[in-house]
């Protein structure tokens, strides 16, 4: 798939698509396949779990067949220690140095634990991993994650699976403005406009899972969000007009005929 933007580069890895997809919560492998293709994604995230011959092999083969780069995540980890071990297991199983560090604080908010995330990021980056760190939308935390060695920072728009979009666009914009590594908007995207906004705010990419996989028509939503990422990127580069509190006419006031 052709994209109207340059590739996304994370820790030396180049990805043609700026849309990163998740594989969770999909109803079937066939539907996942169709959505992944429709999304035009280059990079897709997976969890690391106990081997299940029925589930693991089919997914592994599908991702190989679609030639997607696999981004293992540490979903389900509550401590830096667990996340580091999970990342090492993923590296061993997949032969990759990429990892999405996701250390959550509890299973109801699913919000990232900033301290444990930073610890895991520092340790894994120090060991040579290309860490993509899932974070809350805090500009200072994003800076700390970058200092800890993250190859990309992934602030949330809103809680995982909530579909609430970007609750604090000012923070996301500030993170994007100050970061020297790619910023990927992660979590909270509900529909295409959320992804477009993320890109307009200066993000380098967007990660979606629930927005596509739980949509009524996942492949169609995947295509919509893919187009939105492109639209947002183009709009960002085009330089939007400043917001004003009052109207500003576009038609000239002069030359009006006398019609009374």
């Amino acid at each position: 798939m052709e994209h109207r933007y340059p590739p996304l580069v994370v820790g030396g890895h180049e990805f043609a698509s700026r849309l990163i997809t998740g594989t969770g919560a999909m109803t079937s492998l066939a539907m996942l396949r169709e959505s992944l293709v429709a999304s035009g994604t280059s990079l897709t995230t997976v969890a690391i779990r106990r081997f299940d011959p029925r589930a693991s092999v089919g997914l592994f083969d599908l991702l190989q067949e679609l030639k997607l780069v696999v981004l293992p995540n540490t979903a389900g980890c509550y401590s830096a220690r667990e996340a580091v071990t999970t990342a090492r297991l993923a590296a061993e199983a997949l032969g990759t140095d990429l990892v999405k560090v996701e250390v959550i604080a509890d299973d109801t908010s699913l919000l990232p634990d900033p301290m444990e995330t930073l610890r895991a990021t520092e340790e894994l980056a120090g060991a040579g991993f290309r860490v993509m760190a899932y974070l809350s939308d805090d500009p200072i935390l994003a800076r700390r994650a970058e200092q800890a060695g993250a190859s990309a920072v992934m602030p949330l728009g809103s809680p995982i699976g909530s579909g609430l979009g970007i609750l604090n666009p000012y923070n996301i914009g500030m993170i994007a403005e100050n970061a020297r590594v790619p910023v990927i908007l992660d979590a909270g995207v509900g529909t295409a406009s959320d992804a477009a906004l993320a890109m307009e705010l200066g993000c380098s990419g967007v990660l979606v899972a629930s927005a596509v996989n739980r949509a009524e028509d996942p492949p169609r939503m995947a295509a919509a969000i893919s187009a939105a990422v492109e639209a947002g990127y183009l709009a960002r580069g085009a330089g939007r007009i400043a917001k004003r509190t009052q109207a500003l006419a576009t038609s000239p006031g002069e030359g009006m005929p006398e019609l009374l």
Partner: protein
Amino acid sequence: MSAELALTVNGKPATAREGSNLAQFAEELGLPPRGVAIALDGEIVPRSQWAFTLVTKGCAIEVVSIAAGG
């Protein structure tokens, strides 16, 4: 017939032939040639070391792979 060792695989009771190494045991379990990793008593054993790592009585083996998620 060689003796059998009791151990656990992913938290479930299992048995292995005495003296078998991880590579042999992985084959018995029918693990695929790629996409899995093994931790033995909490320590990750790289695939390159499976043939040189003996399975011991009572050991806990965790076999992981990718799963849909995230």
